[in-house]
């Protein structure tokens, strides 16, 4: 059985159907990319899986457990880690403390009020930072880091709860080409080592075609294509949406007009 099953997922904002009945599966060990033009519904889908938005219809199941209706913190405890489009970390904490915080939350120690944080889960936190290549910066405040480094810290925090599924919203935005490829290679390694799965959105097609195992193409809230790099490249509808008629925001032609 697949790790994540998304069935008939929809989200309406007033009259606008931002996501309109999409289906997909995600398997263990897989790096699945979600692409599509602006306004396709990528971030909306993402936020529904992460619990930041509540779906208007359909279901999202992680290993058979329903995520629709759960709060982000509950989804986290079910084994989903996530990073945000604009990296979110705790600016007044050091890199190490940020990671320790994620570990403390995972081990349900948030309401402990006596022992200082300083020497709790220190080794585990350093190990996580080592994995993302930030161990050397452990003692620096997060507010001082370069943006690419903040994203790595965020990744370490997202890994702290031993997630089965990692959601990454534009993981390489704001990074140079070299950094991008490094980060994605790292992600691929983590997926294999930890036997988890990654769902990510990305605007850089280089990154997607070089690193994703499989991809979903969204346009106007609908899933228009699904497959590996080769089949997506040659998919006529995808070509049309991205390059073809220039009418990105028209409804796909075969669809009945309302």
């Amino acid at each position, binding site marked *: 059985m697949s790790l994540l099953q998304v069935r008939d997922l929809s989200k309406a904002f007033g009259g606008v159907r931002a996501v309109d009945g999409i289906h997909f599966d995600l398997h263990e060990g897989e790096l699945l990319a979600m692409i599509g033009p602006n306004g396709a519904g990528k971030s909306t889908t993402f936020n529904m899986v*992460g619990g*930041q938005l509540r779906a208007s219809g359909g279901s999202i199941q992680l290993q058979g457990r329903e995520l629709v209706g759960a*709060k*982000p*913190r509950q989804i*986290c*405890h079910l084994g989903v*880690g*996530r990073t*945000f489009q604009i990296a*979110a*970390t*705790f*600016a*007044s*904490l*050091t890199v190490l*403390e940020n990671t*320790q*915080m*994620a570990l*403390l*939350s*995972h081990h349900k*120690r*948030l*309401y*402990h*009020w*006596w*022992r*200082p*944080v*300083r020497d*709790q889960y220190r080794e585990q936190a350093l190990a996580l930072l080592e994995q993302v290549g930030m161990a050397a910066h452990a003692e620096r*405040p997060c*507010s001082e880091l370069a943006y690419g480094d903040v994203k790595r810290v*965020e990744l370490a*925090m*997202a890994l*702290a*709860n031993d997630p089965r599924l990692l959601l990454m919203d534009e993981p390489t935005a704001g990074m140079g080409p070299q950094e991008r490829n490094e980060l994605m290679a790292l992600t691929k390694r983590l997926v294999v080592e930890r036997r988890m799965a990654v769902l990510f959105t990305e605007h850089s097609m280089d990154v997607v075609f070089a690193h994703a195992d499989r991809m979903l193409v969204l346009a106007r809230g609908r899933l228009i294509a699904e497959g590996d790099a080769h089949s997506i490249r040659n998919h006529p509808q995808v070509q049309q949406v991205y390059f073809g008629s220039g009418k990105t925001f028209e409804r796909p032609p075969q669809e009945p007009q309302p």
Partner: protein
Amino acid sequence: MEFSALLAQLLNGLAEASSLFLVAAGLSLIFGVTRIVNFAHGSFYMLGLYVAYSTVEYLVGRLGPAGFWVGLVVAPVAVGAFGALVEIVLLRRIYKAPELFQLLGTFALVLVINDATLYLWGPEELLGRRAPGLAGSISLLGRQFPTYNLFLMVIGPLVLGLVWLLLARTRWGVLVRAATEDRQMLGALGVNQAWLFTAVFALGALLAGLGGAVQLPREPANLALDLRSIGDAFVVVVVGGMGSLPGAYLAALLIAEIKALCVGIGSVHVLGLDFSLSKLTLVVEFLVMAVVLVVRPWGLLGKPQAGSRNSAPAEAPLRPAGNGLRWVALVVFVALAALPLLQTWLPYASVLAQDVLVSVLFAVSLHFIMGPGGLHSFGHAAYFGLGAYGAGILLKVLTLPMPLAFTFAPLVAGLGALLFGWFCVRLSGVYLAMLTLAFSQIVWSVVFQWEAVTGGSNGLTGVWPAAWLGDTAYYYLTLVLVAASVLLVRRIVFSPFGYALRAARDSALRADAIGIDVMRVRWAAFVVAGLFAGLAGALFVFSKGGVSPDVMAVGKSVDGLVMVLLGGIQQLVGPLLGASVFSVLQDSIMRATDYWRAVFGGVILLLVLVFPHGIAGFFQGLGNAWARLAARKPALLPREKRA
């Protein structure tokens, strides 16, 4: 009750709604554009009344009865001009400051304006003359109804219409609305915002002045009007939705009519108990506000606020105390412990030290939710008061022994925080500040009116410690408890709970995503802060031998804010420094001059303009600058050589 009496009350409510609206409209307008919550708005209202009194007296002498109406027009214009001056001289310097500092800065203005009014017009109440032509009353269903109230009923909707036209139909109005929507974008389009802000502020002040001036025949000008009207105006604006004028009128109408109904219905008989609804008038507006904020967190017609773009810069990570700090703490503790031994030479020192210690604990408890928690409470005095009254009532009414009363008192405050905190942690920013203020007002009015138990305005007396805790022993108890509490709070800040609190403040989004229940963490912190504030209150009541409702008035909450900000909100030693300096200053200023409020206001203004990071922050900045200078010197030398 009779229908006609009810109708008369409802009509009075309409007149009252107009007055509320005039003050609230200006406040809302100013907030919408400048994002400043103008505490001094009530002062403009008060000034409007005083200035109208003087201009009318002067002009009636010159022009006869027509002078009244001319005076009523001149006074608001004068207040508007004064508002423009205030904006140019003061507010322009604090637009970029963190929200909290803006509130404090305008609160300082309240103090300064109040003392200036005292100086110019004296302490006596001044009742203006009646309106020529509208002095009588008309008959409505057999009841007399003052004609002047009819005039008031009309003026609120009239002003609403005029301001709406101004905003909807003029170029200036379009700019104002654009600024309300997105200031930065407007600036990027090349609009000179400075004068736009000045004009809006002047208009807001003018409206408040008008609100005051039209009260001339109904209400004597007095010095308590500023805080009273600002309280009402806040409630109206928050209930209606910050920045929404129709919302403000709707809220004014709602509150005025509910109040009128309470007065009109009088007492009701429910389940064999008599409830006096008219006693509710003091608190009913705050009840309305609490209900509205919980159901509609942005007010009736308001929109969710965009996050403030000028919040304070990110805090530096916490460091455990170095050896230097530990030594200083120890020396201070020993010095404080030695004070009673010096009684012969410094008889007053340990009395002052007792007050300082209580203030320190109060400030530390407030800082815990404000600094690490990022929850700006404007009603923290409620928990101090609950602790003080809790102790007093347990001792006097339930006749518990003193040690037990003392022990349970903080729990009373903790229970209050448990209840109110549940509502408060659901909001943030200005709305949170207002809700905490509302709860403290509710507690205050309950204490004020429940005479049988709380002693009403006289408060409780004869609340003394047990005999074995005589003078010096009680001082030592205070010293030990305060020192232990300060260390404990510090311990908590460094623990996972304290970190979770700071994490939730830094990024609620990220905290949620790693599985932290943000609201529950904040709620727990609220209760912890309440417990410690309650302990401070209990220490206070037994040292003074009694307590009056003043300890939980708005002023006391603001004192707490000033202490925290004076010390520096980003440092853990901030509240200790701030509370000490504040208490000593207040003590010496109050004994030195009648105009202590103005001096105090001046000190706050100085703080806001010169030390935006507080005393502790100032010294840290000085230290950093010194370190930078020291580091730069060698680097400069080669460049000089090259030149």
